[in-house]
C-alpha cells in the first residue's frame, strides 16, 4: 500500500488542478485476435516426448465487434521443426475459453511453431525452442527455528540466453518418495507480509502460479557462471508419521516465458504506465498477430531430500 499512496496522492493533486478533455483513440485495431498462452515441456526422465498445455482465447477488439458468430471456428496448427505435427480444425470460437493439450515427439533444440487461424482474425503464430536439460542443483538445508533454510546452486551455460524456474515441494513418507510423487507446495517467504501489494520475489526475477508456485530468474546476472541461492520456507511440524522430505524442481525455460510473466505482473501494478506517465513494460508477447506467450521448458530437479526436522 505504501507506494500506492505516493502514486494516488500525486494523481489526486494533478486531478484537482486539471481540466478534462475527452477523445477517441486513433490507431486501435478493430479486428479480434487470438490469445495463446501455453507451454510445451519435456522432462529429464523422458527427453523425447513433449507435453503441451495451452489456453486459447478469442479476444474481441476494444474498438470493434464484441461477439463472434456461432459458426466461427479456429484452426490450430502445431509444427515441429517446420513439419506439421497436428491440426485441430474443430475449435469453436464463441463459447470456447478452453484448454488444449497434446503430446508430441520432441527433443531439446526442436523448434515448435503454433498457429491459430480463423476468418476475420489475423493469423496468430508463435515459435519456441525446446531448451536443453536443466542443470543439476547442489542442495543443502537446515532447520532454523520454524524455518527451513535451503541453499542451492546451479551452473549456467555460457554463451546462451537462459532462464530458469524453480518449484519447491514437500512431502512426508516412510520411504524415500519416488520422483513421480508430486508432493505439495512449499512456499518461500521473502520479507513482505502476504497481504502486501508488493510482489516480493527474493533473489528471483518473478514468481507465478501455474497450479504450482514457480520462481523464475534469467541468467543475465550470472551468465556462464555458478549462482548460489539461499531461501527460507516457514516449516511446520508434519502431521502424521514419517520423514519429511523436500525437493526442488528445476526447469530450464525459454526466456520468453519469463518476459511474459514479468509483463503480466507489471500489468497488474503499473498504475502510472496506464496513464502514460511510466515506462510500459506490460505489452510483451511472442505471438505474432496475436497476444500471449508460447514457451517451452525442460524439467528436472533434485531427488527428495530429508528435512532435518526434530
Amino acid at each position, binding site marked *: 500500500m505504501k507506494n500506492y499512496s505516493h502514486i494516488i496522492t500525486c494523481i489526486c493533486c494533478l486531478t484537482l488542478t486539471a481540466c478534462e478533455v475527452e477523445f477517441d*483513440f486513433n490507431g486501435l485495431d478493430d479486428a479480434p485476435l487470438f490469445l495463446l498462452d501455453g507451454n510445451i515441456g519435456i522432462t529429464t526422465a523422458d527427453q523425447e516426448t513433449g507435453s503441451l498445455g495451452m489456453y486459447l482465447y478469442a479476444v474481441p477488439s476494444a474498438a470493434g465487434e464484441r461477439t463472434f458468430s456461432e459458426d466461427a471456428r479456429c484452426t490450430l496448427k502445431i509444427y515441429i521443426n517446420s513439419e506439421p505435427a497436428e491440426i485441430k480444425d474443430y475449435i469453436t470460437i464463441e463459447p470456447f475459453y478452453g484448454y488444449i493439450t497434446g503430446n508430441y515427439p520432441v527433443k531439446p533444440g526442436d523448434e515448435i511453431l503454433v498457429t491459430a487461424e480463423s476468418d476475420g482474425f489475423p493469423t496468430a503464430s508463435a515459435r519456441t525452442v525446446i531448451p536443453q536439460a536443466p542443470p543439476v542443483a547442489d542442495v543443502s538445508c537446515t532447520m532454523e527455528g520454524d524455518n527451513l533454510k535451503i541453499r542451492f546452486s546451479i551452473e549456467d551455460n555460457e554463451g546462451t540466453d537462459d532462464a530458469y524456474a524453480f518449484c519447491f515441494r514437500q512431502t512426508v513418507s516412510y520411504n524415500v518418495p519416488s520422483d513421480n510423487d508430486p508432493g505439495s507446495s512449499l512456499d518461500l517467504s521473502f520479507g513482505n507480509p502476504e497481504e502486501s501489494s508488493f510482489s516480493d520475489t527474493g533473489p528471483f526475477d518473478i514468481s507465478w502460479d501455474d497450479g504450482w508456485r514457480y520462481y523464475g530468474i534469467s541468467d543475465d546476472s550470472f551468465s556462464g557462471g555458478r549462482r548460489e541461492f539461499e531461501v527460507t520456507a516457514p516449516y511446520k511440524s508434519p502431521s502424521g508419521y514419517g520423514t519429511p522430505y523436500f525437493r526442488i524442481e528445476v526447469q530450464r525455460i525459454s526466456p520468453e516465458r519469463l518476459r511474459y510473466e514479468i509483463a503480466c505482473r507489471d500489468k497488474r501494478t503499473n498504475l502510472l504506465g496506464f496513464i502514460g506517465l511510466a515506462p510500459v513494460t506490460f505489452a510483451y508477447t511472442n505471438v505474432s498477430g496475436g497476444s500471449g506467450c508460447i514457451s517451452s521448458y525442460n524439467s528436472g530437479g533434485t531427488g527428495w531430500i530429508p528435512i532435518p526436522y526434530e
Partner: protein
Amino acid sequence: MDFRRIFIFRGLNNPLISHMGKITGGFLTTFVSCVTICMSAAAQEDSLKVEERRDSITEARITAEKYAEEASSSRTGHSRLEKTDFIYGNVVFSSPDLIKTLQALPGINPGTELMSGLYVHGGEGSDNLFLLDGVPMYQISHLGGLFSSFNTDVIDHLDFYKSGFPARYGSRMSSVADITTRDGDFNGYHGNFMLGLIDGRIRFEGPIVRDRTSFNIAFRRSWLDAVLAPVINIVNRKNEKGETIGGTYNFYDLNASVTHRFAPDNILSLKFYHGRDHLKLQLDTQQSVPSDESGIGGMLSGTDNLHTDISWGNTLASLNWAYRIRDNLGMKSVMYYSGSKADVRYYWHDLESDKTGLDISMDETNRSRINDIAVNTDFSWMPHKSHHVRFGASYQFHIYNPSRQSLAMNGSARDADSSSRHYTGHELALYAEDEISLGERITLNAGLRYAMFGVSGKVWHRAEPRLSLMVKCSNAMDFKVSYTEMNQFAHLVSTTYLDIPTNCWLPSTSKVAPMHSRQVAGGLYCRLPHNFRINVEGWYKTMDNLLEYSGANALFPPLDTWETSFNKGKGRSYGLETEFGWHSDWLFLTAYYTLSWSRRKFDDIWPDWYSHRYDNRHKLTLMGTWKVSRSVELYASWNYHSGNWMTVASHIYNSGEVFDRIYTKPNNVNLPDYHRLDLGANFRKISAKGIEHVWNIGIYNAYCRKNVVFVAVDEREDKSLYGTGRAIFPIIPSFSYTLKF
C-alpha cells in the same frame, strides 16, 4: 574627449568584419562617426571594444552576429542563442526561460507540457549535457520543470549542439548546452530587479577594482509559499472535518562570480551557483474511533498523518583561468565542484485502520546524491592560418551515493529496511581536433575524443570520432555534413517519465554498459537576399544500451537490483528539420518545422521496433517579434506538434477489469495534437538618468487549448474505449515589472 560609455562585444572568434554585420538604428551615421574601434584589442581578446564619445546613443545592436556565427561554423546542428533570444516568446509567468527557448528549436521534442523536457533527436531527457561555465549541472529545473535552473539575467550566450559535436564535449549522448555567464562590468555598477507573479529576481554587477576586478551576483526566488500560506489558513479555518492541510513550496537560486584581469589575456574568475527547491505537503486528520466493536471500551483518539517533504537542487563552484600563452596559443582551464542532491521524505500514519489502538505508520526517506570534482584544460592553437587545433584533457571524479530507508510500524512490530549504493567513478577524457581550411570553400573539422571510465574495478574505454565538413557552395549557401559518436557513463535511473527527485544518477558498471550514440547529419544553409534565411538539415541517429525500468509498484528506483532489473534496448531517430527566417530592423519572423521519427526496440518489452512516446511526426513553431517603437515590443509564438504516444488496451476479453485487457503493442495510440499560442508585450521607459523600466504582459496558451498531460482510459456503455485527458495548464496570464539600472 568625453568617453561616456564603453561597449564590449565578446566571442568574436572569426575575422572581425564578418561579425560586425550591420549596426542598426536611425543613428547609424552618428554612431559610426563617434566611436573608436579598438582593432588591436579585438584581435587579441576575441572581442570588439567600442567607446562612445558622447552620450547620444540609446541603443546599439549587432543583428547579423548570431546568424553569421552559425553559418561560419563547420558544424551541423549548432545554434547560438544570445541573451536577447531568451526574452521573446518563451516567457512563463513572465520569466524568460532558457530551456523553453531551446524546446522551440527544430529537432527537439519538449515532452510534457511546461516541463523542462528536452528530447533531442530521439534521445531521452537525461541524455543532454548542460554546462554552466564549463561545469556540468544535473538538475536543470525548478518546480518539476516549470522553471529551468538557469537565471537568464546572468547568461551571456548559449552554444547548443544537437549534432556535429566538437571533440571537446562528451559524456552525454544527445546534446550539449554550453552556457556562458557574463562577467561583471569592470567600469560601472549596473543591475536589474524583476518582480513577477510567482517569482522575483535581482542582479547587481560592478567593479571591485576598476578595470581589474569585477563581480556579478544574481538571486532569484519564488514566493508561491507566501501566496499559499493565507489560502491554506483560510481553508483550514473553514474545514470542519478535523482536517488540517499544510504545504509550502519555494525555490531559489544564486549565481555569483568574481573576475580578475591580471592582463587582457590573463583572466581568472571564480563562479558559484547554488539552487534549491523545497516542497512540503501535510494532511493531518483528527480521528476518534471506538476501541472495540461494541464501543463499550471507549474511544481512541489520535491523528492520521500524511506528510511529504521534498528538497532538491545543485551546488556548483568553479575556478576558471583563461591565459594566452603565445599569440597563436591560448589556454582555458577550469577546476570545479558540481553537486546535486534530492531528498524525499514520506510519512504516513493511520489510526483508523486498526481499532485495537495500535498505530500503523510508514516512514520512508529517499536520498540521491551525486558529487563531481574535476579539472578541465583546453588549448586553442593556430599553427597556420588554415589550421585551428584544439586539444585538451579532463578528469572527473564522480561520487554516486543514493540511499533509501523505510520503517514500517504496526504497533510494537517494526519492519526496517534500508538500501544504498555507493560508487566512485573516474572519468578521463583526452581530445584533439583540427579545423582545416582546404582552400576558400572547404572546411574540415576532424577530431577524436578518447574517454575512459572506471568504477568498481571495471574500466570502460571508448573512442569517439568527430568529423564535420563544410563546403561553401556560394557566398549565400553552405553545405555541411557531420558524423559523431558519443558515450554516456551516467544513467538516470527512474521508474517514471516524470522529472521528480526520486530519480537517481548511477554510473556504468561491469553489468551496465555505457549508452552510446552514432549520428550522421547534413544539410544546406542558405542566406537569401532581403534578410531571408533558410536552413534544411537531416539526421540519422542510433542509440545503444538504453535502459528502461518498469514503472510497476514503485515511484522509487529499485536500488538493490538496479543493475539487473532494467530492460536493455536500442533506439533510432531520423528526420528533417527546417528553419526559415526573415528580419528587418523592426520585425523578426522565424518558422521551424521538423519531420521526424523516433523508435525504440527493447527485446524484453516487445520483439519489434515501436514508437517512442515522443515520436512526434510533425513539429512547427512560428515566432514573431514586432518592435513597434523603441518603447513597445510585441511578440507571439505558436507551437504545434503531433500528439505523444501511449499504451492503451486494444482488446478486452472480460471488460471492466484492467487485468483482462490485452495490450498488443507499446505506445500503440497517438494522443491528440498539441498546440498553443503565446502572446506578450514589453513596454519600456528609459528615464533621463538611464534607468530602464520594463513592464511585461504575457499570456500563455492564449486560446486555452486543453493539451493533454496524462490520460485515463475509460469505457463507454457500448464497451468502446475512450480517453479522458487531463490538461493541467489552461490559459495563464502573467505580468512582471523589471527595473534596470
